[in-house]
């Protein structure tokens, strides 16, 4: 599935088995996006949360 980067407009390839909540990274500008929805091979993205001080295991 293809979608354009919200930051630099580069085309991103999203794997067909991607699910809502997964993170995709733009190979060009490095921005992270969270998948908001996947339907009929169409993907909607939003800017992903930044890594927090409390993130981890």
């Amino acid at each position, binding site marked *: 599935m293809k979608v354009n980067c919200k930051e630099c407009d580069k085309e991103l390839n999203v794997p067909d088995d991607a*699910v809502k*909540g997964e993170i995709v990274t733009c190979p060009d500008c490095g921005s992270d996006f*969270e998948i908001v929805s996947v339907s009929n091979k169409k993907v909607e993205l939003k800017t992903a949360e930044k890594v927090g*001080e*409390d993130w981890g*295991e």
Partner: protein
Amino acid sequence: MSDICIVYDRVRWEEKELSEKAIKLGHTAKLIDGKALTISTHDGSVSNGFGDIVLQRCVSHYRGLYITACLEFLNMKVINSHSVAEICGNKLLTSLHLSKANVPTPKTHFAFGPETAADVASKLGYPVVLKPIVGSWGRMVIPVRDRDVMDSMIEMREEMPNPLSKIYYIQDYVERPPRDIRTIVAGDRVVTAIYRYSAEGEWRTNIARGGKAELCPITNELEDICIKASKAVGGGVLGVDLMEDEKQGLVVHEVNNTVEFKGASSVSTKDIAAEIINYAAKMAR
């Protein structure tokens, strides 16, 4: 068969694997975005749709901790419980619980002011290891090799806005091989154990820092210590980390509450996700 709910804030390999494995094992699985949740003390309706058991998998410690508190308020069973998450998410509390239960751990010292922190380190003798009490992936874990570095670290931490940065967790520097051991425990069973080797130019062994995994045999000693450590913090699905101290032998230095297992899965002969789902299904009954 159980209705299993996985609460996430970003779906990583682990959450996808848990969801797929649950379905393969005949359960129903639902992924719920923790960021989209709202919960009220006056309305129990949020508990509808959470199924028989919840696997708390938020990568943000505090988000996971407080969502778990709310779900428990709504009488949901959550793995891990709020109490376990609170203990494991705080290195000071973890050390206290491990030590109280006579689990071998590195000697650890706490100080609550800048002068006492410097005094403790001087009395111990350098090097010492300075760790934040909340944090993961080896972030801000510093080997302090002399007084100058200690003073700089203290000055820096006193300037940080987070009040937890002024609680000093100082641990003896453990002489060990360039690896540690990560075990994954589900209930009273050690599912798998791996060695984690530091990446080149890195002293920490975290897979998140490029550490490499290798299968580690589960000896009786390793199993006993891990089960004891797991019980000491309240039990559940946990990542127990150990070092091979040249003086003390195996010592537990950390117990992880939202254990990542992608690295372990790449070398383990066990199906870690399936073992976690089996444990969750057992707890749901």
